[in-house]
């Protein structure tokens, strides 16, 4: 249990354009332990999504290395579950065929994959919608379908990049509770990007705060609120204190 699911070791990344270079990440080191829920928060341009893109192998770090389950893999794509900001459901595939994409990529037999997906569908509130096209779904359901697709990659670690960013406040809270429920029930490890201080505190065991460009780790905040979390906790003084601390670190609350 002591091997981190993901370990970033002195990661730096610079993007080079034609006439200038943009430093995105600078000397990032941290570990994510099994079963942990870590939220990443930081101003726009602090390289949060870049960190994810590095982790899933869409980008290569300029310096440093990324360990997954204690090893430095030759190829990172496919090793961790990844959900980008947009739901990116394929409009030409029905919901079930959309969520089966990762299993299809892995070359698993179709029949078993379908069986597996259909069993888990109810947990994601998508029962009865498996034969709809994504265009028929609401924003919240699309997000859930995208999450199920990530889930079915079958990886123990999930990287979620602002999955609830585009949703209305109520749907968002509903999905937060639901995400915590499935996270606990299925014992996964989650890294979660958000811009929302309340969301960062509510979901996490630990919040990592990144600075503005180039992204550096500014601070880490342990969230020792009891689980299961309930939305009413947001009104607790302890919750408010954590939020205040975060806001100060982010430089929003002067």
């Amino acid at each position, binding site marked *: 249990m002591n091997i981190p699911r993901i370990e970033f070791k002195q990661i730096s990344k610079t993007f080079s354009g034609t006439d200038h270079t943009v430093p995105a990440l600078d000397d990032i080191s941290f570990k994510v332990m099994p079963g942990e829920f870590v939220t990443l928060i930081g101003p726009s341009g602090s390289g949060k999504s870049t960190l994810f*893109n590095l982790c899933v192998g869409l980008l290569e770090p300029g310096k440093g290395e990324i360990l997954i389950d204690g090893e430095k893999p030759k190829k990172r794509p496919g090793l961790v579950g990844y959900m980008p900001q947009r739901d990116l459901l*394929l409009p030409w595939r029905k919901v079930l065929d959309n969520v089966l994409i990762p299993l*299809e990529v892995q070359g698993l037999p179709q029949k078993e994959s379908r069986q597996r997906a259909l069993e888990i569908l109810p947990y994601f509130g998508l029962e009865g919608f498996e034969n709809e096209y994504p265009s028929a779904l609401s924003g919240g359901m699309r997000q859930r379908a995208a999450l199920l697709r990530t889930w079915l990659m079958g990886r123990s670690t999930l990287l979620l990049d602002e999955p609830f960013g585009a949703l209305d406040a109520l749907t968002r809270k509903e999905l937060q509770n639901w995400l915590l429920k499935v996270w606990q029930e299925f014992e996964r490890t989650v890294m979660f990007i958000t811009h929302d201080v309340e969301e960062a505190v509510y979901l996490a065991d630990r919040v990592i705060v990144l600075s503005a460009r180039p992204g550096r780790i500014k601070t880490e905040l342990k969230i020792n609120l009891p689980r299961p979390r309930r939305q009413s906790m947001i009104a607790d003084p302890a919750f408010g204190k954590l939020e205040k601390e975060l806001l100060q670190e982010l430089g929003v609350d002067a």
Partner: protein
Amino acid sequence: MNWRKYIIPPTALIAILIIGWYFVAKISGLNSFILPSPINVIQAGWETRDLLLSAIGTTLLATGIGLVLAIIAGIGIATIIDFWPLARRALYPILVVSQTIQILAIAPILIIWFGFGLMPTIVIVVLFCFFPLAISTADGLISTDPDLIALLRAMGANRRQIWRMVRMPSALPAFFSGLRLAVTYSIVAATIGEWVGGSQGLGLYMLRSKNSLATDQVFVAMLITSLLSIGLFITVYIIERLVMPWYHSKQRKEQWDDTGIY
């Protein structure tokens, strides 16, 4: 679909035009080899029905073969352009130039090369039709959402899987737009080939009718050419709906309606 909204206006307009044509032909007193009335045209068509039927068969055969070859060529060229940036730069201008070449000038040469059979007609159909297919399919392929490709890559998909699961379906709407254009041109292209080759099909029927001043028969041929083109267009439209039900879904249409553009 509200069929009244879409069927009645064009039908009514066409009916008015035909009636207008009838009266002009009648009242002007023009000889029927200058302006045949709609009734002359129908009579002429009926009298030459055996000839017409076999001509239609021949023309459709040449069109069909030509279209299949054009689709293969169009998709092939689009794929090459997509996979290989150098080919895009090298081929694109040539493709455009190919469309500026006078078919009327090429046709006799094709007859010298391929004889008086179906072949020259097929080649002309291909020349007319591959272009919209190649261009639209290439555009469709390049219009794939890069985020979708990134997602698939992050899942560990290889190039072939990305091609099959994302790029090809993304290109389908554009491909079908190209195909609709292509089939609309195809019948006319075939009759031009036949006319110039003077060997068979509706084109020959037209040529012979013109030469013998049977203007009513020329009108018959024009009418049938149009009907065949429209028929092909509708066929492609139906296939398109069957192949891409998601693209023609109710929700998608409603989203368009919601924009208030129409």
